[in-house]
Every structure is written in C-alpha cells, then in structure tokens.
C-alpha cells in the first residue's frame, strides 16, 4: 500500500451518478422481467434445448466469473509481488473482483431450472462434483477478498495485509482452475476433456479481468475528473498485451492438443473451419479482435494517447473474450456426442448432426443484467468507501516517450 496515495469517495446524487444508476437499474429491471418470464413459462422460451443445455446466460456468467478472479491480479501484483506502482490500484481491483463475481453468480443462479432452490445448492454438497467445489470456492473468494480489502483500508490491520494478499492470490488461482475443470473434466464432450482447460481459463481470466479493470478505472476517473497519468495507462496496456499473448498461447495449445488426439479431428475441423458462426467468432472475434489487434495496439505503433489505446484494447479484449467463451460453451455443445465412433448416427433426438442454437432476447437481457449488477456494486462501492485514488500521475496529450 502506498502511504502517499489519497483515496476519496465518489460523490453521490450528482447528475452523472444518478443517470448511471438509473440506466443500470433499468437494465437490471429488464433482466429480472426476463427471468420472471423464463421461470414462469419454462426454459422452452429460451434458445436452449436438450442438446444445447447451457446457452448465452452461461457465456455471460462464465465471462464475469473468470474476469472476477483476473480483476484481482492488479492488487496481487502490488501486494504479493511488491510492485509499489500497482498498490494504489489494489482497492478498486478487489472491489471489482467481488462485483464481477456477484454479477456472474447472479446470472448463473437465475438461469437454473429451479433458482428458488439456491438454499438446496448451499446445503447439499456432493464433494466429488467440481461444481459443488466451485460453490465453496466462489463464496470463499468473496470472503477472502473482503478481508484482503479490509487490510488495505484499515492501517491497524496492516500485519494481516501480506497473508491476506497471499491467500487471495492462491484462492483466485484455484478458483479459476476449478472453473476450467468444469469443462476439462467432461470426458463426453470432445471439444473439452483436456487438462489444458485449467491453465487456459487462468490465462483468460488474466486478460479479461485486466481489460475490465482498465475500462472501469478509465471511465470512473474520467467521470469523476481525476487525473490518470499516461504512465499508468501504458503500464496496464503492456501488461494486458502480455496476458492476451498468454491467452493466445494456451488457445493454440488446446487446439494443437486436440488435433494430436486421434479421433478429435472432426470437432477441430468444426471449430476451426466449418462451424459457421462458431468458426467466425473464433477467428474474427476471439483471435482477431480479441487477440491479435489488442497485441498490435499494446506493442505496435502509436497513433493515440496511452489512455485511449488502453481503452480500445480493453474493449476488444472484452468482446473477444465473450466470443471465446461462446466458442467454448456453445461451440462445444453444438458438436454432437459421438455414441458410435466411426459410424453415422441419426435419431429423433438430434443424434449425429450439429445442433443449432440462437439465444432468445430473454437470455440476452439476463446476461446484460449480470453486467449491470457488477457495475452497480462497483459504483456503490466507490461511493460508500474510499477506494478510488484521488489521482494517478500526470496526463500528457502525446504518448511519445511512454512506450
């Protein structure tokens, strides 16, 4: 923690504050309306079927949950790895981690067939299930990060700062491993079923979490007229580039591993070449917009100020991230289960052919509701508590000399 950093609350009830909260509140209200409709009518009004059982809400939920653990990295770099320049960002980083997780879990819970049985999920545990482990990991993450944030804000608890930081860092790595294993342990699904899903999800979380952090930091500083130095933006942008490269590396590793496995060429051909929307989202969304372009922006030529470049790269990483989670979750289910390897199969239950899926407006509303919940929690957090630094360095109009 930097002893020289001044933290101030965001002033509530200003015109901008009220407009933001009203807009986010409206999105949440619409999302709750969609949930009511889906629960009342049943899931048949969604795009989900007995073949594609996890749809767009899971894409949003997994993105938010993965981004949550990654958002904590900025705090960890300052505390666990002792990088002083990151320490003033630790409080926002922790808040964002909790907020994103809450948004993601809200979507996940409200997409259950029986969301009213949340209490059952918290009282009946099958400890062989990685899903049950994740319930514990998610709730524990909130508690650990809350303690970590407390040690950052209360100087009388300074002696617990380092242990809390280490616990939170370890916890977030295990948490994201658990999320990756939800897919990696599914031997039946040819698109997953590989241990590399765990490190891939960790790399994804690093990139998504930092991108969301950069966006929230930049927008909140701009809206509250706090100075944000080019040095901070440049540093975060370069770090984002590193995480994006790691994500690309593990993505490549996943697909090379799949191609190496005998019998998985079909699903790889589907994802990489013939999967229509899924293939487009993979190459254009995930690899192009979410991978290569942010790398070019981070390390390439400089046409804009660092803050603007960091914003552009972060938006692209978020969009690419949503595409990536779509390809994993929806693309993985669209490919049919292989009951009879080497044989052609067909049935009235859609065996043997690629399954289609188009998200309904209800599912989209629910997903966006999760994003809004995360942003409301973040806004309330920076309003109620001194989490935002009053300023971070000096701004310049040019990026020269900051590369």
């Amino acid at each position, binding site marked *: 923690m930097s002893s020289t950093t001044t933290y101030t609350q965001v002033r509530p009830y200003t015109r901008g504050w009220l407009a933001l909260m009203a807009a986010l509140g409206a999105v949440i209200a619409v999302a709750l309306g969609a949930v009511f409709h889906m*629960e009342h009518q049943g899931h048949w009004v969604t795009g989900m079927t007995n073949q594609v*059982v996890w749809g767009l809400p899971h894409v949003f939920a997994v993105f938010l949950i993965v981004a949550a653990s990654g958002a904590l990295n900025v705090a960890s770099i300052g505390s666990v790895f002792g990088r002083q320049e990151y320490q003033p960002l630790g409080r926002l980083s922790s808040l964002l981690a909790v907020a994103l997780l809450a948004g993601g879990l809200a979507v996940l819970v409200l997409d259950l067939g029986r969301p009213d049985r949340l209490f059952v999920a918290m009282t009946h*545990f099958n400890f062989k*299930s990685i899903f049950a482990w994740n319930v514990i990991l998610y709730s524990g993450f909130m508690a650990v990060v809350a303690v970590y944030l407390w040690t950052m804000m209360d100087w009388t608890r300074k002696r617990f700062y380092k242990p809390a930081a280490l616990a939170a860092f370890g916890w977030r790595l295990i948490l994201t491993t658990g999320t990756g294993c939800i897919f990696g342990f599914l031997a039946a699904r040819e698109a997953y079923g590989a241990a590399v899903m765990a490190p891939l999800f960790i790399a994804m979380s690093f990139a998504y979490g930092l991108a969301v952090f950069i966006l929230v930091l930049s927008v909140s500083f701009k809206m509250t007229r706090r100075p944000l130095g080019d040095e901070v933006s440049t540093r975060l942008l370069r770090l984002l580039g590193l995480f994006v490269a790691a994500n690309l590396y593990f993505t490549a590793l996943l697909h090379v591993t799949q191609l190496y496995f005998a019998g998985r060429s079909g699903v790889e051909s589907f994802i990489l070449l013939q999967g229509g929307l899924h293939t487009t989202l993979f190459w254009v969304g995930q690899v192009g917009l979410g991978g290569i372009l942010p790398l070019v922006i981070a390390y390439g030529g400089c046409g804009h100020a660092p803050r603007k470049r960091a914003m552009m790269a972060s938006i692209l990483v978020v969009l690419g991230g949503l595409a990536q989670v779509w390809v994993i979750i929806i693309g993985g289910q669209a490919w049919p289960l292989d009951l009879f390897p080497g044989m052609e199969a067909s049935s009235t239950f859609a065996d043997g052919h690629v399954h289609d899926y188009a998200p309904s407006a209800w599912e989209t509303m629910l997903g966006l509701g999760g994003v809004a919940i995360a942003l409301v929690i973040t806004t309330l957090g920076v309003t109620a508590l001194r989490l935002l630094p009053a300023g971070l360095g000096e701004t310049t109009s040019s990026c020269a000399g900051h590369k």
Partner: protein
Amino acid sequence: MINRRHLLLASGAILIAAPAAAREAGKPATAAQRWGLLIDTGKCGAECTICVEACKAEMGLAGHDRPRTDAQYIRKVNVKDPATGAGHSVPVMCQHCAKPACVDVCPTGASMKRADGIVLVDRHICIGCRYCMMACPYKARSFAHEEQTGQQPHLPRGKGTVEGCTLCVHRIDEGRLPACAEACAAKAKGAMLFGDLNDPKSEIAQRVAREATTRIRADLGLEPAMRYQGI
C-alpha cells in the same frame, strides 16, 4: 393388434425375462442385484418404435410437439457403417452406469445411483443446473422445459428439473418388467432381455457370459448395465 405369432413370442420372452420377486415394502435395494438389459439389435427393426411408445405411455411423456425441448427417455438411434453400408437401429436410454458421470458431477447429489445400480434423479433436490446433461456421454437425459401435464403417479415430473430413464424402477420393485422390455416382448420380436446381471442363474447373466456383447462407449470406462448384441 396382437396376432398369434406375437402372442407366442411374448409368452416365451416373458418366461425367460421375468425378474426376481417383488421387493418387500420398506426393504432397501441392495447391491446383490445389478439390473440390466441385453438388447439384440438383430431383432430390432428400423421402423419399430414400440419400446419408445411404451415408455412414453408408462412415464406420461405427453410432450408439447416441440422435438428440441420435449423429453425422450428412450430413442431409436439409426447407426450406419459408412465403409460397408451396414446399418442398425439401436434403442438408447440411460445406460445405468456402474460409474455414472452424471452422479459424479451433480453438485447437490440429486443424480444418484441406487444400490442395485439404477441411476435416478431426486427431483426434490435437483436445482436444474443441467451439468449432468453436459456430462452424460449418452445424451440420455432431458430437461423439463415447461409445465408437465398428464403425469403418472409413479413418475412425478417437475418443470425446471432434469429427468431420464428410471429403468421403470417402480415396476422392478413390484417384480415386473420395464415397460419397454415388456412391450417389445409382447408386440415386437422380444429384442430386450431384462434381468439381474449379478445372478449367475439369470438368463441375461448366462447370455452375457456366453455370447459376445458390447457396451456403448465402453472406452469411457463407465461400465453401463445396458449391453448390446449385433453392433
């Protein structure tokens, strides 16, 4: 309409496939039994859906004329070898695995395996997460996508929960055959033999020991109780 040929087939099939006596009320299922089916695909006609229809009637699967979301506990999968053109029509349902992936992944324990190997869903604690559907290699489970009507007393179905073939556990406990096996014997060629795989004297155990049988996706090591001949 049952003709004389069907009647003869049925009587013979029921004689050899009759399960053990009914389980006493209040007495729990035990691992002494391992219920299973042996399906002879050579006797299974491509157009025949008698087992599917019997299952629907027994379980009250009325459906809503929405194939993408309507439940199917048993289906006929048409399998064709692209190299030779040889084809089979294979009834596929919950395979009642000894090591069921659905039971492993279920966060609440709603997916469970009875001592006698029958895999069921406790709809009182199923939260509808659908992770079991993601994990099942046989696509044997359905999600109750909407309100259910025409329900049978022995199979309460609940909107928002997952369901699948119970191997007609209510019938087995009464000492009767599963509806699919009974209908196949009575109205078709008797392709389904039900019995106790743990009982060396049972017809199914003797045939499995004597004849070549296969299990679907045996490579996954889940040890299903459904065995097939002819594929």
